[in-house]
């Protein structure tokens, strides 16, 4: 293995050597090295907390390193802030989309770099530039006047990339760009990334999806506990080797071995037209489809979160019936980030845990401490604010809410979005165990390997309807995609 081979060529576009960074007592980065050539897509791999985001913050000028050197095209590079980094041609696309939702697409694209004469916005020029940037990304058809918030997540991402392109970046950092994209949109994004590569832009690509990384990246660097543990050409190493570097141990099987069992029907998944789909106890039912196919809407209707003619119910009634829902939007809907782990995990049971309306903190913390142990949630304790935890641990808190309730039927919307490989494997094991205990699970996911690895049956949605449901063994990935995009008919 080309261990610690950080040399992509004689004169790399970007070279980091011996970067140290400590926050208080925590050493976030220790002697990290990274080298990226011009026109190279470089995958930065590592578990959550491995130091990837800190390293990217150093690169994009958000934090200054304690030690080490950075060179950009051979010249010393130490940006004072994000603006300075952008001026040097280092731009970053964040995982959480950062658009101003009320502003139009073109205004978002030129934001911070508006063409103007003495403060007067040159709208014509601004629109021209915005359209030009979108055209480079093969998205010239997007309506420039529409508010950014009204576009699909995939389109919003393209708008963000277009914004970065406006500054003619030499290095473009993409943090988990596909975590909210469907397979088809991911393909489109890859086309965009390849286009950037041919134009000589260096792309640093951060992702948890190893299969995906292989498709798009040339070289890789693995971080673990703030140190560079491996680097080299992706073609030269196997998947298992990268995973071993990441977690420092062999992860033999990502997905648990299950013996499917199907009990009595516990829930009818209804839809406007066609037969309802029965969900059985002990079953994991996958729901696949493109973004916008209506998968989330289906779950929300079942749970009574959104009004629907098919279900007359409310979330409160659903919880009372033992139905639990896990939101795809952890930060804005799923969890109350400033509140404690305990409050988040037990919110559905407040009235049961209270005495005469008086909620005993000790009571909910004791209940939660139990689940922290059982799910292996990494936290200082039940009182810590959920917002301070890593994505994977936040998701475990959200799951703990369903488990302590306890829910018999679990509606899970993208349960592993944006969390690291190690946590994913744990969550898969947990879901399998829940099904083995006889609970019924509906799993909505945009990540096909996860659906194939975990589910008993997979249903495909297209344009708001469940178009086909088969046993897992009766599907292949290409077949499923064909049904999802409507190419089969």
């Amino acid at each position, binding site marked *: 293995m080309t261990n610690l081979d950080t040399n992509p060529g004689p004169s790399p576009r970007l070279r980091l050597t011996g970067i140290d960074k400590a926050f208080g007592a925590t050493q976030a980065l220790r002697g990290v090295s990274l080298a990226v050539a011009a026109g190279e897509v470089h995958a930065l791999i590592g578990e959550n907390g491995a130091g990837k985001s800190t390293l990217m913050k150093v690169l994009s000028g958000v934090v200054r390193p304690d030690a080490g050197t950075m060179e950009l095209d051979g010249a010393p590079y130490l940006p004072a802030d994000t603006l300075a980094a952008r001026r040097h041609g280092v731009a970053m696309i964040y995982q959480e989309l*950062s658009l*101003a*939702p009320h*502003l139009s697409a073109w205004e978002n694209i030129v*934001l911070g770099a508006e063409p*103007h004469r003495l403060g007067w*916005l040159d709208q014509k020029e601004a629109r021209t530039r915005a359209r030009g940037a979108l055209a480079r990304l093969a998205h010239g058809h997007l309506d420039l006047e529409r508010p950014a918030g009204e576009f699909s997540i995939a389109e919003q991402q393209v708008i963000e990339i277009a914004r970065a392109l406006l500054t003619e970046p030499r290095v473009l950092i993409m943090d988990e760009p596909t975590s909210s994209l469907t397979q088809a949109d991911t393909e489109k994004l890859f086309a965009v990334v390849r286009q950037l590569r041919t134009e000589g832009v260096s792309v640093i690509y951060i992702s948890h999806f190893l299969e995906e990384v292989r498709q798009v990246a040339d070289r890789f660097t693995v971080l673990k506990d703030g140190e560079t543990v491996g680097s080299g050409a992706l073609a030269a190493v196997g998947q298992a080797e990268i995973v071993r570097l990441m977690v420092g141990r062999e992860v033999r099987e990502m997905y648990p071995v299950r013996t499917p069992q199907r009990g009595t029907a516990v829930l009818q998944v209804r839809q406007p037209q066609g037969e309802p789909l029965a969900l059985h106890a002990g079953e994991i039912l996958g729901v696949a489809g493109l973004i916008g196919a209506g998968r989330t809407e289906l779950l929300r209707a079942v749970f009574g979160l959104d009004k629907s003619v098919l279900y007359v119910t409310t979330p409160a009634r659903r919880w009372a019936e033992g139905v639990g829902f896990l939101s795809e939007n952890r930060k804005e809907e799923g969890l109350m980030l400033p509140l404690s782990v305990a409050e988040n995990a037990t919110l559905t049971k407040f009235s049961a845990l209270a005495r005469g309306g008086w909620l005993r903190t000790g009571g909910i913390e004791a209940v939660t401490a139990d689940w922290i142990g059982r799910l292996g949630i990494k936290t200082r304790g039940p009182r810590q604010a959920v917002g301070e935890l890593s994505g994977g641990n936040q998701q475990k808190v959200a799951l703990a809410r369903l488990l302590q309730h306890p829910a018999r039927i679990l509606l899970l919307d993208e349960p592993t979005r944006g969390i690291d490989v190690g946590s994913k494997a744990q969550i898969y094991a947990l879901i399998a165990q829940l099904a083995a205990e006889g609970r019924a699970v509906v799993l909505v996911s945009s990540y096909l390997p996860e659906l194939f690895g975990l589910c008993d049956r997979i249903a495909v949605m297209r344009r708001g309807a469940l178009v086909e449901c088969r046993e897992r063994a009766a599907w292949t990935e290409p077949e499923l995609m064909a049904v999802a995009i409507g190419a089969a008919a």
Partner: protein
Amino acid sequence: MKKLLSKFGPFLGLLLVIGLFSLSGEIRDYFLSYANFKIILTQTVIVAIGALGMTLIIISGGIDLSVGSVIALCSVVGALLIQQAWPLVAVVLMVIAAGGLVGLLNGAAIAGLRMTPFIITLGMLGIARGAAKWLANNETVNYDASPLNGWMTTADPFGWALPAGAWVALALAVLTAVMLRRTVFGRHIFAIGSNEATARLCGVATVRTKILIYALAGCCFGLAGLMQLSRLRQGDPTVAIGVELDIIAAVIIGGASLSGGVGTVLGSMIGALIMAVLRNGSQQMGWPTYFQEIIIGAVIIAAVFLDRLRQAKRE
């Protein structure tokens, strides 16, 4: 259709309010007369000019509670300068500058010290009011005569001419609307209100922009103070208590969102007119003031509720 509705929502509200008062046969003739229209317009001037500044602040996701106190302070400053026989131009500039200075302090504290606008301007509400009373020696500041006195009246109340103050408000409204739509600064106000983290990320100088927003708004409040002075013809440190709430209400009725990113000058102006028409109509109906207050409160809640419905439908 929905877009049209959301654009003309406040306008329909205004027509509705006018229509309701016109139902009463007793007051209809006078209520709909041009003379009364002039009175309403003149009564709107102070709230309207204040609402222009407040529109900037609310679009940026902020709030300013100190407006009433700033208006009083500025009217006292103006009265003192007239007493000292300063020329009109200098008085006007100094009063506007006084408002701008208070706004600058607000903005510097909010953006520089990263404190919430609510707290800072709540503090300024007390400070400016106290300063006004201090400057005025806790009594009204009187002066003989000033050309300023003619700004809020016309020689012939039944003639066609509008008072100067109304023209000033109108011109300023056009200027502010253009600034919000067409300048980089204006669009940055929307960007900050829509998503401040994004704006900062994109290199928008958020601190400087926010300070400028409050300072400019302060200038508007100073001008509103000048109009107050012109109307009362004396500097009164206890005037305009609670006016900030009318101003905020006007901006919200006009379709702005308190969470930022949304709002228009036209909407705010119509909002200010709605409030003035309600007051004027209620007075002519002979309703007691407490009844007017209840009605205006209900209208604010109804306007925001309707706005919510409109937003929900669009989604």
